[in-house]
C-alpha cells in the first residue's frame, strides 16, 4: 500500500466538489499521491464550461442558497474550483474519467476538458488505484 488518496467524485454538487478537491490537493501537499475518479454527476463538471455549474447539496433554494454561499466563500477568499484543479494537476494529481458515464450521458471526449484528464477508465481502473491507496473516499 502506497501513501495515496483515491477519491470517487460521484456528485456534481458544488460543495461536494470542493470537499473532494480540497482533500485531494491537501493529500498532495502532505506528500501523498492522489487520484480523482470522476463518474456520474461528478463527470458532468468536467464538461467544458460546467465546472462551476453545480448546485448546492443542501439549501440550494433555486440558486439563492448557492449565490449566498458563493458570496460568503468569496469574502473568505476561498479558492475557485478552477484554481484547485490547476493546483491538483501541478502537484502531480491524476484525473480519471469514467467511460461508462460518458456512454450513458452521451458525453464525448471532445466535450470534456482534455487539459485535465489523464486517463479514461472503468471500475478496474478505480479498484487498481484504490487497492494501492491508504485513503479512499466516495463523494
Amino acid at each position, binding site marked *: 500500500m502506497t501513501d495515496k488518496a483515491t477519491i470517487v467524485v460521484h456528485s456534481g454538487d458544488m460543495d461536494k466538489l470542493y470537499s473532494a478537491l*480540497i482533500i485531494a490537493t491537501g493529500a498532495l501537499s502532505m506528500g501523498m499521491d492522489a487520484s480523482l475518479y470522476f463518474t456520474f454527476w461528478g463527470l458532468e463538471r468536467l464538461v467544458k464550461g460546467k465546472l462551476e455549474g453545480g448546485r448546492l447539496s443542501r439549501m440550494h433554494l433555486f440558486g439563492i442558497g448557492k449565490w449566498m454561499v458563493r458570496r460568503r466563500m468569496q469574502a473568505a477568499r476561498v479558492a475557485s474550483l478552477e484554481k484547485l484543479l490547476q493546483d491538483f494537476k501541478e502537484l502531480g494529481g491524476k484525473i480519471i474519467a469514467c467511460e461508462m458515464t460518458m456512454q450513458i450521458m452521451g458525453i464525448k471526449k471532445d466535450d470534456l476538458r482534455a487539459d485535465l484528464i489523464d486517463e479514461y477508465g472503468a471500475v478496474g481502473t478505480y479498484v487498481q488505484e484504490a487497492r494501492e491507496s491508504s485513503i479512499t473516499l466516495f463523494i
Partner: protein
Amino acid sequence: MADIKVDVRGETCPVPLVETRKALRKASPGDTVEIVGTHPASKKEIPMALKALGLKLKDIEEDGDVWRIKIGV
C-alpha cells in the same frame, strides 16, 4: 542557495498548504522557503506536512495574527 518567499496572508484552507508544497517542489537543495500567512490551522499543518516530506523546519515566528515559517530544503 536562494531565499524563496511565499505570501499567503488572508488566504484560507487549503491554499497556504498547497502554495507551500508548490514552492517546495520548485526549490533546489540548499534553498530556504519562507511562508507568511494568517490562516490559523495552516500554522499547525505546514509543520505536519514538512515532517511527512522529511524536510527541516528552521523557524516559526508569530506576530499577532501573522505567522512566518522558514523551511530548509
